[in-house]
């Protein structure tokens, strides 16, 4: 009954827990001192959901201010703080930890391992997020307010920030350390703890995407650490990395940042691809089409992601060869991403589909994420990006890939694996209300932003010319609607599941779902696969 906070609701039917009472601590110790991947996964998920709320409230602050032209609620300074902290909290607090939570819960189950490779370090990775989040959120109350230089933290604006900037930098160091440890844990678990017979090419795609994501994380988080360390020393110790007066270069910051930043956006989408790759076959009742090419496509995306970073910098003034190179390389990413989209559709083709909530979110993901991918491609074209860089078109693009991509896939995953975590089924009606409400309000919020961007409304603006008023008003209404849908989700889906209210979930609630996670009871017992299971030839069933 791992994810169930109130174990009373579950008196019966879990005799398998009792054998391990010795190792099954109760009360606060269970969470603070956790070494159990499921408990740690639960904490990650709850933390990231809390951060989604915080980041979402900040976004609503932005949208409230932008509801009409003129300043009504916040001054421009606070506005920039809202934007910056919204970006930082969503990226580092909500999306990334949510995927790590999924990894913690699902990877050992999916590959037939007893736990993560380094259980204590796993807990450290989680608990490091708490100080980091406290520092970040607390920076609003520091003199001068929170950092206000955008989530990209461009120098030299960061050099003008108050003390909260340093708090932010250290918080990000800690989060980076957490991510690196988490990634090492994930890689080692996948490489070294698979049950016999679970060969790499039989692994669920979620494990594959996370393996590659973890590699990306280890490669780029230290680079971010380097960039913000240079910011720190420029601020306080007299170095001149980004200060031209001393021979440095502000644009150098951007190169280093985006060398991290671009792979970072794929870090936030590859595990989403993994989740969707598990769900679509389950509800199409048909095996995933092109498993091998999915793996290669994922790897190609990861490799390409290292050579496209300067597409965020077309307007900084690169030599023409630079612009051309980065433009071509960026566009190439459409090819492997396309392969994935086509494979999913081919999986659905001639299947026998049903549309329970996880499938709805996955199909929604496919449809809306692809729109974001196409706007990405449009941005990749340097001459067009000259018009659109730093406008709301970019904001539209990345919310299509981040909210409709990453977040939708996360929701899909919660509905899909939630029964395994909590032992109860969610209500199908409520799930559908959540999905349709979110999908509609999402588009009301972010679709008009394309028009705003094309018409030249710059991003990170607290106020804007009158001609942009209508679309902004629509977007703001949509944002509050979208926010309410998430409140609905929390109150009517998450809370009941956490309390264990609802139909008891069968071991395998989805008829055609495949994978070892469905070979253990629901909720997954505290300990699973303590001795490596014997697997059938497809490595999807336990035979002994």
């Amino acid at each position, binding site marked *: 009954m791992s994810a169930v906070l109130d174990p009373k609701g579950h008196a019966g039917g879990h005799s398998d827990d009792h054998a391990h009472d*010795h*190792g099954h601590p109760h009360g606060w*110790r269970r969470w*603070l*001192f956790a*070494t*159990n991947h499921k408990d740690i996964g639960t904490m990650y998920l709850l933390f990231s959901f809390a951060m989604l709320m915080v980041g979402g409230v900040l976004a609503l602050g932005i949208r409230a201010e932008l509801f009409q032209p003129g300043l009504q609620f916040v001054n421009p300074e606070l506005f920039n703080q809202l934007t910056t902290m919204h970006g930082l909290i969503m990226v580092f607090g909500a999306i990334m930890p949510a995927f790590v939570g999924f990894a913690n819960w699902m990877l050992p189950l999916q590959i037939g391992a*007893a736990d993560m*490779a*380094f*259980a*204590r370090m796993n*807990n*450290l990775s*989680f608990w*490091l997020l*708490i*100080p*980091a989040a406290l*520092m970040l959120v607390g920076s609003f109350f520091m003199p001068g307010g929170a950092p206000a230089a955008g989530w990209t933290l461009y120098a030299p604006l960061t050099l003008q920030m108050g003390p909260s900037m*340093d*708090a932010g*930098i*250290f*918080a990000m*160091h*800690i989060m980076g350390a957490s991510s*690196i440890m988490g990634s*090492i*844990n994930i*890689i*080692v678990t996948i*490489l*070294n*703890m698979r049950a016999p017979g679970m060969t790499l090419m039989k692994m669920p795609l979620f494990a594959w995407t996370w393996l590659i994501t973890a590699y990306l994380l*280890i490669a780029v*988080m230290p*680079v971010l*650490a*380097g*960039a913000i360390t*240079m910011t*720190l*020393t420029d601020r*306080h*110790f*007299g*170095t*001149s*990395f980004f200060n*031209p*007066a*001393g*021979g*440095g*270069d502000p644009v*150098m910051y951007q*190169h280093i940042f985006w060398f991290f930043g671009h792979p970072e956006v794929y870090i936030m989408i590859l595990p989403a691809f993994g989740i969707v790759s598990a769900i679509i076959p389950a509800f199409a009742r048909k095996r995933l089409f092109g498993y091998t090419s999915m793996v290669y496509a994922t790897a190609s995306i990861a490799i390409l992601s290292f050579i496209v970073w300067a597409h965020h910098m077309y307007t900084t003034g690169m030599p023409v060869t630079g612009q051309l190179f980065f433009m071509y390389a960026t566009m190439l990413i459409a090819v492997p991403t396309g392969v994935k989209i086509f494979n999913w559709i081919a999986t659905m083709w001639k299947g026998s589909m049903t549309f329970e909530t996880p499938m709805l979110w996955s199909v929604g993901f496919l449809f809306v994420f692809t729109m974001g991918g196409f706007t990405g491609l449009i941005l990749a074209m340097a001459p067009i990006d000259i018009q659109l860089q730093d406008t709301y078109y970019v904001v539209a693009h990345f919310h299509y890939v981040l909210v409709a991509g990453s977040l939708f896939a996360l929701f899909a995953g919660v509905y899909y694996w939630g029964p395994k975590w909590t032992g109860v089924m969610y209500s199908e009606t409520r799930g559908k209300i959540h999905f349709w409400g979110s999908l509609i309000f999402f588009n009301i919020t972010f679709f008009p932003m394309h028009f705003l961007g094309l018409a030249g409304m710059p991003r990170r603006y607290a106020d804007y010319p009158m001609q942009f008023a209508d679309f902004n008003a629509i977007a703001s209404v949509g944002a509050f609607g979208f926010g309410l849908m998430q409140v609905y989700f929390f109150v009517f889906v998450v809370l009941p599941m956490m309390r264990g209210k609802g139909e008891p979930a069968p071991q395998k609630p989805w008829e055609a779902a495949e994978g070892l996670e469905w070979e253990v009871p629901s909720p997954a017992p505290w300990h699973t696969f*303590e*001795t490596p299971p014997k697997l059938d030839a497809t490595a999807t069933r336990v035979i002994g």
Partner: protein
Amino acid sequence: MSATTAAGSTPHYYIPAPSRHPVLMAGGLFLVILGAGQWVNGSTWAPWVLLAGMAVWLTVMFQWFSEAIRESESGLYSDRIDVSFRWSMSWFIFSEVMFFAAFFGALYWARVHAVPNLGSLENQLLWPDFKALWPSAGPGITASPAGTVEPFSTIGPWPLPTINTALLLTSGVTLTIAHHALIAGNRGKTILWMWITVALGATFVGVQAFEYIHAYRDLNLKLSSGIFGSTFFMLTGFHGFHVLVGMLMLLFITIRLMKGHFTPERHFGFEGAAWYWHFVDVVWLGLYFLVYWL
């Protein structure tokens, strides 16, 4: 299984029981970042918070490692865990490589793009007197575009850095000798060569400290000496810090060897530290050529 495995037998994969170390360490690090963030802004209480945080952090680290060593010595770690350690150390070192890559990247960018650009014809509009030279020092040359950096001299490869190169390369050899001795089951010899390795590392740190003092006192080369000083001190400084850490690792391994830990067959603690040491060595070679020679 962890807690339920009978004493004396090695579990398939040891999973530690709940532990207070991680959460305490996170608490310690909270104090560290809180203190550090306030300290750089001149708060008077912050250094104490920072110190307290470091104390908590190091204490927990000590207890945590002690516990792991106890577990290891009592035979709880199977071969499979040994493989896990190998993978994790490799990936950790890879992350360190990428951290240094950021600073090497900065050096590359500054030398090949930023400084030449600042001194280019175009930029004469802004910095008419600046000549793009690296190192940006020397008689009659403004060390920075704005002329805000005092003239300084630079440190060539000779003699200190070369001595340091020799020290580190030798330490790599002595470490390998120690390793071979360990495999051959000759503990006394291992310990002797380990001490020599540690001493070489310590000497390296000493020479580097001496070089820094020399730079600050005699050459007027400081962290604030424009982009040259920035890249020079941050690269060599972070490297020096890593040498220090590597040396401490080797020191603790030596102490463990003296306590009778490790066997000729199983000694990944030793090997992990050795890998780290070689990594530090390789980074140094990069520094030696890119920072001091070129």
